[in-house]
């Protein structure tokens, strides 16, 4: 089903190369606070660089960030330093949201050592659901204006309101279809497995958005026209009899290539049915309003989407995780923490306490790096966690 996407992905480096030969510029970004629509509307190629899982890239980044730092951040620098990855090598400029420490360091190092122009985007930490500090939204909108002017200068194209509205429409269409793929239309069944949905989500971040949308439409049509949903429902019923523990993943970014923990869970018999990660469902859940003022609409959407722990409104995250967990009848939560990710790790105690008040599901912390050395330890933890959940239903 996603074979055609895989083919598009295989061809992507070459298509980027050809586009660059025609004068196109590539703007890389790492964090979902960067409004991809702005880059697209400026006529440039947006690439969310979400590769990870490989020890080599993470180790290459150590010479810059040191070993006691986020492995994803190390990889973001390491891939460029190694010079082997075609996506990282293709980047003409970076847009870095000034969120966690690691992101800010990526900005520093790419600019200083790799001499790549970096457009920093400030993100206020204090914006919350109750909009108690409205000037934070004004600040973010001004940061977007600044980013827009920098992108215009780099590309030589004016980002008109019309172009921006067109980009917003395009990405909203993608978001709608991604939500359809993730959601459960009836009886708890899903169109595709969570793992496939995540893979599609991550892949889409690298593809040309128009091509990605076309491909998503094809995938979705095929699913609706086949018996897939009913087949999934059948499998779901069988699964319920055995009670495969239904798990949700929440925490640090799950990058493309970072399958270690996910594979261990699936091999141990855990059924991951949902997530609240920034390369998964959380990314697609909220549209940009197609209003008269597209820049304001972008600011509104990107600042009020479910936040990462960089932001201070933890209540919003707890509410969202609870909602998704209930909708997907989750038995347990995997709190996935890349080692030295302080935003997520520092919040664990507070998060668990708050979650317990909302719903009684067990939480398993898995803290790891991009290295195979802890596979055995993680497997033991996961197996024990699943046994505990199975024991509840026995």
């Amino acid at each position: 089903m996603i074979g055609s996407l895989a083919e598009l992905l295989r061809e992507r480096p070459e298509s980027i190369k050809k586009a660059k030969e025609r004068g196109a510029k590539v703007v890389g970004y790492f964090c979902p606070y960067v409004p991809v629509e702005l880059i697209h509307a400026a006529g440039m190629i947006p690439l969310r660089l979400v590769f990870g899982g490989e020890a080599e890239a993470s180790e290459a980044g150590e010479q810059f960030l040191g070993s006691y730092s986020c492995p994803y951040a190390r990889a973001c620098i390491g891939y460029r330093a190694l010079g082997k990855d075609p996506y990282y090598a293709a980047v003409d400029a970076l847009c870095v949201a000034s969120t966690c420490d690691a992101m800010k360091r990526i900005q520093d190092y790419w600019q200083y050592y790799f001499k790549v122009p970096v457009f920093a985007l400030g993100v206020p930490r204090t914006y919350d659901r109750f909009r108690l500090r409205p000037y934070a939204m004004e600040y973010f909108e001004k940061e977007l204006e600044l980013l827009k002017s920098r992108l215009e200068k780099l590309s030589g194209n004016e980002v008109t309101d019309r172009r921006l509205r067109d980009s917003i429409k395009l990405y909203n269409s993608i978001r709608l279809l991604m939500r359809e793929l993730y959601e459960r239309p009836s009886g708890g069944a899903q169109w595709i497995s969570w793992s496939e949905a995540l893979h599609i989500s991550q892949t889409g971040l690298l593809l040309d958005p128009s091509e990605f949308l076309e491909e998503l439409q094809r995938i979705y049509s095929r699913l609706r026209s086949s018996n897939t949903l009913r087949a999934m429902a059948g499998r779901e019923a069988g699964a319920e009899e055995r009670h495969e523990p239904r798990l949700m993943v929440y925490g640090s970014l799950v990058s493309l290539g970072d399958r270690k923990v996910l594979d261990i869970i699936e091999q141990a018999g855990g059924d991951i049915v949902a997530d609240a990660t920034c390369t998964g469902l959380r990314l697609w859940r909220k549209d940009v309003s197609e209003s008269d003022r597209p820049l304001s609409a972008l600011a509104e959407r990107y600042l009020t989407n479910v936040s990462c722990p960089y932001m201070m409104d933890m209540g919003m995250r707890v509410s969202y995780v609870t909602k998704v967990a209930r909708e997907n009848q989750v038995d347990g939560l995997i709190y996935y923490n890349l080692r030295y990710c302080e935003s997520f790790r520092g919040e664990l105690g507070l998060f668990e306490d708050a979650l317990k008040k909302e719903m009684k599901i067990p939480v398993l912390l898995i803290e790891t790096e991009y290295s195979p050395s802890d596979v055995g330890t993680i497997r033991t933890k996961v197996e024990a966690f699943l046994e505990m959940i199975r024991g509840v239903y026995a």
Partner: protein
Amino acid sequence: MDGGLTGFNQVLSLLLSSRERVSASGKKVVAKWAFLPVEPIFAAGALPYDPHIGEGLRHVIFEEDTSSINYAVESGLPPDFCPWNLSMVGSLTKGENVVPIDLFVVACGCWCDSMSKSWHLASQKLGRPFHYFDVPRFDADIEERAVDYLVAELRSLFRWLEDNLGKEVSDAALKEGIRSTNRLRQTMADLTDLLQADGVAVPALEYYLLQMTMSDCLEAPDALNQALQVLLQESKDRLRAGTSASRREHPLRVYYSGVETQELSLFNTIEDSGGALVGCDTYLPLFRGLVPVNGSPVEALAEWIWRTPYNFPTPERIRAIIPHLKKQKAECVIINNATGCRYFTETSRLAKDLIREELGLPVLTVETSLPGENVELTESRIKAFIGTYS
């Protein structure tokens, strides 16, 4: 420590009598992190207290008791977290805090992520109100926008203080607080200037501890200033008499950068190896310049906050410190990364390269942890470094 400095002994006495002083005042205590100004708290009729220093210094360093760290881990923090946050959260959740705390306010700016999480956790465990003050990213040349934002954040802070403490934070009270803390800043700056002399007026460990007191002024800026004035005079007298804290006639002039360390022996090692501490930038932003008292005190504080070097990207932060390095005539730099501190660990390579590029100074990076852990390795490296460049 050098027991012969009366002024320093007075400072130490103030530090160790925080609990009694707070209790006698009858005032509420607001736990605040270093780079948040103290003036709004004083203006609201409360006392500022930096629990990193208060709890970290008292329990972990002076009493050599690290058992509270286990409480921090049980509360949810990882054992490889920032040691200052671990000792603070641990001490508070264990119930052994030096000073009882009524409110928590943290600045969550362009520096480390662990700060906001630890302080939020501590406030939750103690059941105390918590406020966060944001210093987001601004371009260095967009001053007006930055100041406007920070004024709004300050006013939000004032409203929160007023709601919780019942006293208006007036411009007049702010100005009075600024005048008091400016006197303290000036004295600390004068002491720092003495380090430019060839002799060593203020020993390394004493200077390091003194600049830490700038965070909460030990709840008593005037008393602290008086003690520092005594020390300033003693130091000037020593310089005139040619009495130096260093064993060498021309010690290697060492500048300390990076995160504050709990391994205080590092400073004695610097001197024992033939070096002299001529500057330190861990708390330098707190006394690097006076806060103007003419005009709007809120705008003055907002601008002062914005200019804190830690708000800038690393290259700009280092470039902001370089004039100070030159002024203090540093001959080498030691950058400390505390185990668990991501901010400095992740920036130390760039900081090192920039300092070498701009000034051509040799730079040593060390890593310190809780007191006594891996200290031999650190000491050997410092001795070898100072020995090489002396």
